[in-house]
């Protein structure tokens, strides 16, 4: 059924369709609409779940951890400072191998206060052991949440589905809301191997000595590697049932491209438009949208950018003292290679500044003109 809905609500419907049993959340702009809708769905009985109101995001994640540990499907959503407050427990959820799914609506972190879009909040959680998916559209957000439960439950790691604040969370688009029965066929009930159960008393995540800890960390790394295959496999299954697939990365007009824009989230939509215009003018420009940030799809990126001489990465985030995070990760892909593209790292769209067609054209022009970047990070929309 196609409906024109808000991006936030696309997530809410996905949570309902995934038959999540515990929602434990704390409101924060711009994520609030997701949990408001879920609260409505729970109160009307459309959704059979416990909605736990808590006093902080830290508690929200703690609640999800508890719920997931007893073997039920758990969901939360947050943004920015709220996500930062969860940080400790994000590590815990992954270390405890709990397949929690959360939505994070990208919002910049204060100070100074800013409620608008940038990706630094979720990218700061890069090393927590969570899978991260960056969505371009409401449809992708809905589909990714459903997929994420299946992926997470297969690899025993939590997933973060990431949406751009306002550009995606608060805009309305036609969204195909899948049929319940079909989602059930795609996503069977969660059956964990181990769960907190008074009838089978075990201690969970207890003190683990040095002679075992390394192995447990290695298992998570292995699970992340495995996740790349699982994501693709699940994507295929999803496609077979619903006719949509997303991949780890998505190339757009990459054929014979000499210059490729790399970006993520809603900036990719604007970029497609600009690419079309350049192609119309006969310029060999393409786009690579990175959907999966963790695990990082190095192989897929290398394959997609084969024979490309210049890459322009648009990062809506900043790792102070280094540069755009996607750009840095991309550079590391070629760290051990003899050859590879020249990588230009652009910082744009921070704190809700629009990444316009002009911004993107400017980036393409600069990249064409220069042999190599003059600085590790280039700031094309900076006020001069």
């Amino acid at each position, binding site marked *: 059924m196609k409906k024109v809905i808000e991006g936030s609500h696309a997530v809410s419907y996905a949570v309902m369709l995934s038959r999540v049993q515990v929602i434990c959340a704390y409101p924060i702009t711009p994520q609030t609409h997701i949990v408001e809708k879920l609260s409505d769905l729970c109160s009307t009985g459309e959704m059979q779940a416990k909605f736990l109101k808590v006093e902080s995001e830290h508690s929200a994640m703690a609640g999800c951890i508890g719920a997931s540990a007893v073997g039920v499907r758990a969901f939360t959503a947050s943004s920015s400072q709220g996500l930062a407050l969860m940080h400790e427990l994000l590590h815990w959820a992954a*270390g405890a*191998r709990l397949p929690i799914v959360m939505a994070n609506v990208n919002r910049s972190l204060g100070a100074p206060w800013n409620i608008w879009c940038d990706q630094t909040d979720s990218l700061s959680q890069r090393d927590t052991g969570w899978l991260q998916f960056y969505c371009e559209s409401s449809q992708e957000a809905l589909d990714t949440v459903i997929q994420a439960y299946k992926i997470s439950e297969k690899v*025993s790691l939590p997933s973060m589905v990431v949406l751009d604040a306002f550009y995606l969370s608060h805009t309305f688009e036609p969204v195909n809301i899948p049929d319940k029965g079909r989602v059930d066929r795609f996503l069977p009930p969660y059956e964990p*191997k181990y769960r907190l159960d008074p009838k089978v008393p*075990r*201690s*969970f*995540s*207890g003190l683990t000595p040095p002679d075992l800890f390394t192995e*447990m960390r290695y298992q998570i790394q292995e699970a992340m590697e495995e996740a790349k295959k699982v994501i693709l496999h699940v994507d295929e299954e999803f496609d077979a049932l619903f006719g949509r697939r997303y991949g780890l990365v998505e190339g757009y007009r990459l054929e014979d491209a000499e210059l490729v824009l790399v970006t993520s989230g809603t900036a990719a939509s604007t970029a497609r438009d600009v690419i079309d215009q350049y192609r119309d003018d006969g310029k060999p420009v393409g786009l690579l949208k990175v959907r999966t940030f963790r695990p990082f799809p190095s192989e897929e990126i290398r394959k997609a950018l084969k024979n490309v001489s210049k890459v322009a990465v648009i990062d809506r985030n900043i790792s102070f003292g280094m540069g755009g995070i996607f750009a840095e990760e991309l550079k590391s892909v070629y760290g051990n290679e003899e050859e590879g593209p020249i990588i230009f790292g652009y910082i744009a769209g921070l704190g809700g500044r629009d990444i316009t067609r002009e911004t993107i054209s400017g980036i393409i022009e600069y990249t064409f003109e220069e042999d190599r970047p003059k600085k590790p990070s280039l700031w094309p929309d900076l006020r001069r």
Partner: protein
Amino acid sequence: MKQKINLKHLHDIPPISISLGTMLWNETGSWRYLRPKYVVKTPPCNEACPAGNDVEGFMVLARQGKFREAWELIKEESPFPGVCGRVCFHPCESSCNRKEYDEALAIHSVERFLADSQGQTRRVRHAHRIRRKEQIAVIGAGPAGLTCAYHLGRMGYGVTVFEAHSAPGGVLRFGIPEYRLPRSIVDHEIQDIQSWGVEIKTNTRIGKDMPFESLSTFQAVFIATGAHESRPLNIDGENLEGVYSGLDLLKRIKGGEKIPLGKKVSVIGGGNVAIDVARSALRLGAESVEILYRRSREEMPAFSQEVEEALREGVKIHFLVSPKKILGDGGKVTGVECIRMKLGEPDESGRKRAVPVEGSSFSMHTDTMITAIGEASDLGFLPQEIPSREGLIQTDEMGFVHVRGYFAGGDAATLDRTVAVAIGSGKKSALAIHEYLQGSWSTKRFESIRVGSKGTISAKKYLHPPKGEANPPVMTFKEINTDYFEHHGRVSDPSLSLEERRGTFHEIHLGLTPEMVEEETQRCFNCGVCNQCDNCWTFCPDMAVKKKKDHYEIDYDYCKGCGICFVECPRGAILLEEEMR
């Protein structure tokens, strides 16, 4: 599963950090260098009670709503909870550790509640497990004599109490005014004593109605004739009309006599009789009642609370004043000539001596003069071989007079003249008589039934020796973990207003409600006695505390000796000792 699991290979390790077995293989008890141990300490209230009540014990039961069991527990030691709950000077409260925190527990009020709610329901004749052949005589049916008879009766002896007055009770019946101790309370508790087979012969004064020698048919005799003789002032005018002895007057008032006391009444003395008679005089309609006391408030032997109540009711007290001569006109008292006193060096009782101030004489008018400067025992009926000195029968601590078969207690044997001390002395002699008759007395046995070091003994300990240390140390306030107690003031005993007291002898204090008892008993620290609060069990990080039906046990295979149980025990019932290996 006590075996340690060995995870050799990567694939042996579960994907999630979970326990696959138990940690029982790791007997952490071997790490211990401090060893916790459950102990029972002596609560200070129990030590302080001259009657030997297990105050802490009845507080626990009362808190659980087990009023019957609480009352039965008191009755193990004392037959007079209804009396003591009203008239005792409650040294238990003065030594209550809670007073260091907020206010002492209202122990007497709880005791009174238990007696009032339970004491009137039992009207059975007790069945004896043992019926002993020995017969014991008790002279004097006051608190000491009746308590002795009660305990002997409970142990199966035949007891006959000889009482000179027309009714039993002694000072309880004749000496303490109705507004403090109604007769009905005394009647009920004496009836309960009689239900143990104790026979009371009233109107039988030994030495007058029956010769002392006739008691030789009894195997043991307990002498508890009290102190009923008012000491004379030994000044001029003592025989004038309108001069009364305090004790005599109280007895007549209790008997229902309406005595015309005049408008202005003066009382000489500073003890409980002086206070009782002054407050009684107010109730009989005296317009003004003044007490003359030769020392200061601090030296007054009367119970402080009673003095306060007397002052509230309007009694005036002139301190540092001593009568020199009672003035009269036509054979009737008209006034008193006094001299002012000052305090000098302490006398042998430790109180400061009162010394006359030269040239400070003055006179005051009065219609009635009541003397209450102390009471003496009349021991004239005793044969020569019963030793006495300065009006007191000489005994050892257990009341034995060192003449075969004779024991003595109560006011006739001590100057420590309170109901509770009399009850304690009656109990001690009952146990001593039993030991004497069984020929088994030993000092060791006596030491084992002591409660603390203030002379208190326990009949329950005697009959059912406890397992642990015989007389453990007294619990101090410092050992209480006050984190577990909220500050909460003491319950206030409802009482008649000053207006309601006027002109009547109605009991002043009205007693607690069950809700008040619940509130008050919850304040008890249960000093040094485990009340199964579960703190040790909850806090033990090694789950080495095992809960049993009515106690806990420590599994020393796993107790690391961390001491958390010791610290978290609110009431010092756990001790931490060095581990000796």
